[in-house]
């Protein structure tokens, strides 16, 4: 009820496409959208090749030859529980060098990366051979990991030169490969549809059927060159899937060739370092893009001008019985979620405004109505005792410093919580209620995930500074 003013659009679940065998066909929802993981349809047995696009004979022949060439380079990547020796999640991957370096998604190996003593990594190749995998490098922001298979002169795939320059033509046919739902290696035809416009982290929009277990597998061009790697799909659409662009994968691959491998004793420190760097760039970019003022009743409220926000509006005017206070809200959520572990997602920012005015409530009742949207820490994701500290809050009436825009006194609460696993990043939310009228109020909230304390304070100050009376 409390969060309803800031309700985000329904059904924007994005699922990472690696299989968690414990939960059978369940995948964890990646996006921080409120669509519960339960919204993910349990797949009926999906045929290995989608029957939606009946292939023409020559396309089918192309797929056949591509698969024949690429097959020896494919891997299934399994995370096993060390004690039980059984797999707890599966994904895919592929070899990119003759000496055994292979590419997959970070989220495929995340369990192992965070708990190397509890889990171990294993690969299985289409010919049935198996063996241990070493984790060499990770890139959390782009969801890429480099692993290593022992061996020499191994068959491997190469990157598509056009994709490395992010110049693939829209409509190009791509072939995604991997091992969906542990059913065996498959090849899926689909279409390259450019970069996802509203995503902060670069993602290719791939129209094709990617399923759990195919994460980390390659999507190759008709020439058999890698254009991207399978990473996620939307749960509320059909065939709406996402790839990590080849340029990002190749960058980590090049780094892994020269830099020393990841120190398994300090993976959290490495993730921490990457998260701190990532949030520095993200919040800097957010500040650079600036804010534009939206007029809500007598108030002016800031909305981000950055292109990677998804905004939704909501009103209670059409409710029955007729509400006794009218509430019109807008909520903008950044498409920048980062998957760290099953129970840690971070990297999103949210900006919400709710303009409330009394229809027939007296000032006390109106204040009680507004209280519903004031209380609570206002964080984006729910609290997890294992991963986050308890929130610490400071609340008071706040008056704008002289020199800024003229604005009302505001009742403001600042809440912050730290990540237990990562130093230097916090979840912060600031909620504020205007205090200049007794039957009208603007409730605004800025919530930031995985942000440094300095960036949070800077952005929050700017946010408060932009809340003003409309001219």
């Amino acid at each position, binding site marked *: 009820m409390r969060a309803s003013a800031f309700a985000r659009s329904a059904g924007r679940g994005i699922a990472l496409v690696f299989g968690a065998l414990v939960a059978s066909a369940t995948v964890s929802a990646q996006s921080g959208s409120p669509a519960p993981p339960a919204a993910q349809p349990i797949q009926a047995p999906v045929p290995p090749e989608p029957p939606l696009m009946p292939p023409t004979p020559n396309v089918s022949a192309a797929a056949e030859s591509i698969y024949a060439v690429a097959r020896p380079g494919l891997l299934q990547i399994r995370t096993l529980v060390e004690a039980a020796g059984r797999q707890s999640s599966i994904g895919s991957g592929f070899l990119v060098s003759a000496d055994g370096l292979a590419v997959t998604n970070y989220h495929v190996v995340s369990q192992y990366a965070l708990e190397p003593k509890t889990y171990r990594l294993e690969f299985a190749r289409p010919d049935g051979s198996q063996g241990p995998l070493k984790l060499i490098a990770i890139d959390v922001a782009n969801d890429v990991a480099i692993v290593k298979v022992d061996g020499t002169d191994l068959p491997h795939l190469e990157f598509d030169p056009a994709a490395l320059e992010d110049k693939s033509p829209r409509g190009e046919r791509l072939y995604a490969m991997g091992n969906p739902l542990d059913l065996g290696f498959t090849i899926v035809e689909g279409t390259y549809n450019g970069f996802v416009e509203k995503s902060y982290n670069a993602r290719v929009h791939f129209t094709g059927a990617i399923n759990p277990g195919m994460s980390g597998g390659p999507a190759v061009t008709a020439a058999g060159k890698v254009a991207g790697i399978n990473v996620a799909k939307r749960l509320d659409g059909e065939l709406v899937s996402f790839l990590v662009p080849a340029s990002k994968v190749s960058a980590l691959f090049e780094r892994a060739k020269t830099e020393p491998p990841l120190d398994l004793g300090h993976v959290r420190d490495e993730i921490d370092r990457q998260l701190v760097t990532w949030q520095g760039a993200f919040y800097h970019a957010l500040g650079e893009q600036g804010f534009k003022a939206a007029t809500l009743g007598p108030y002016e409220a800031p909305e981000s001008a950055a292109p990677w926000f998804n905004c939704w509006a909501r009103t209670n005017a059409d409710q029955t019985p007729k509400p006794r206070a009218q509430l019109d809200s807008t909520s903008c959520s950044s498409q920048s979620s980062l998957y760290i572990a099953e129970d840690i997602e971070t990297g999103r920012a949210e900006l919400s405004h709710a303009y409330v005015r009394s229809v027939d409530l007296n000032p006390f009742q109106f204040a009680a109505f507004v209280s519903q949207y004031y209380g609570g820490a206002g964080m984006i994701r729910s*609290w997890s*005792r294992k991963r986050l500290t308890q929130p610490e809050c400071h609340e*008071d009436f706040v008056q704008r410093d002289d020199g800024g825009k003229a604005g009302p006194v505001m009742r403001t609460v*600042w809440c912050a919580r730290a990540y237990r696993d990562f130093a230097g990043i916090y979840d912060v939310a600031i909620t504020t209620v205007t205090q200049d009228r007794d039957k009208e109020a603007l409730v605004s909230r800025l919530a930031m995930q995985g942000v440094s304390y300095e960036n949070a304070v800077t952005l929050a100050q700017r946010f408060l500074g932009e809340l003003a009376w409309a001219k």
Partner: protein
Amino acid sequence: MGEVMIPTTPLAEPAIWIEVLSRLHHDVAARYRFIDVPITVGRAYDNDVIVDDPHVAAHHLRITRGENGALVAEDLGSLNGLYVDRARKPTKEVTLDAGHELSIGATVLRVRTAAHEVPAETPMLRGLPYWPSAVLCIAGVFALAALDLWLSETNEPKAIRYFTPLLILTVAVVVWTTGWSVLTRVFTGRPRFGLHFLIVAAGLLGYSVYSQLAEIGAFALSWTALANSSYVFAWLFLGGIVFAHLLAVNRARRPLKLVIALILVAAGVAMQTLKQSEYRSTYGQPALLSRLEPPALRLVSPQREQAFFTDAEALRAKLDKARTEEPAGGEPQSEEDDE
């Protein structure tokens, strides 16, 4: 009562009264008038006062006059002896000059002469009965509760929202007051319903007023702890009410009753504090102001924006400290960071 009049002829000596007292409150259970000594007390039927107490000897006690004319009680060689007042050791013989209480077996006696002086007459309390003030208080409680419900009414108004809590309140007050009245009746023979009703009504009114002021004060003074500590005052008021009820039963043993009330308050506050802190550590909910009031009720001047953010930054040290501590009650962190 058990008064027995023994026919006498008038004499120069004042009459002697032997009073058998009740065990619990030492009220007079039976009173015997004598005009002369010796008077014997015991279980046998040749005594002047017969006591049906198995711990009393057949001939237990004899009251005579001493050399100076004072009354003297002597033990006639009983097994269980004679105890004076609260003495721990038995006495063979005692001069009855100060209205001593004599214990023989499990029976308590008092010997007084007609010359015994009684305290002055206490005036009858003809003031107002308790119930009009009690009704006034309870009306205040009801009015405040209804007002609070009305001021937090943000949806379609429904009568049932008011009716149910007020009905529950009424039943609770009636049951509580009746319970104390029954208890009082058992101990003193008078239920004192009006007094008990007044005590609970005044206590509830006091708490209602306090909690409303605390809610508004928390907003007006920007002092969240004022509203969030209301439960402490709820227990204090309850402790006060219980203490007043216990005093209304009778006036004896005040320190003991005060201790009982304080233990109740301490236990209640401790329990609820623990419950709240466990709730917070389980669900990660901060303690924030839960109810806003109309802006006109704000009394404090607002913080400057810069000061607000300075306070916000001060929280960082707390978070960093909490980060390195283990999850409260949760599983320990994996050890890989410790290597």
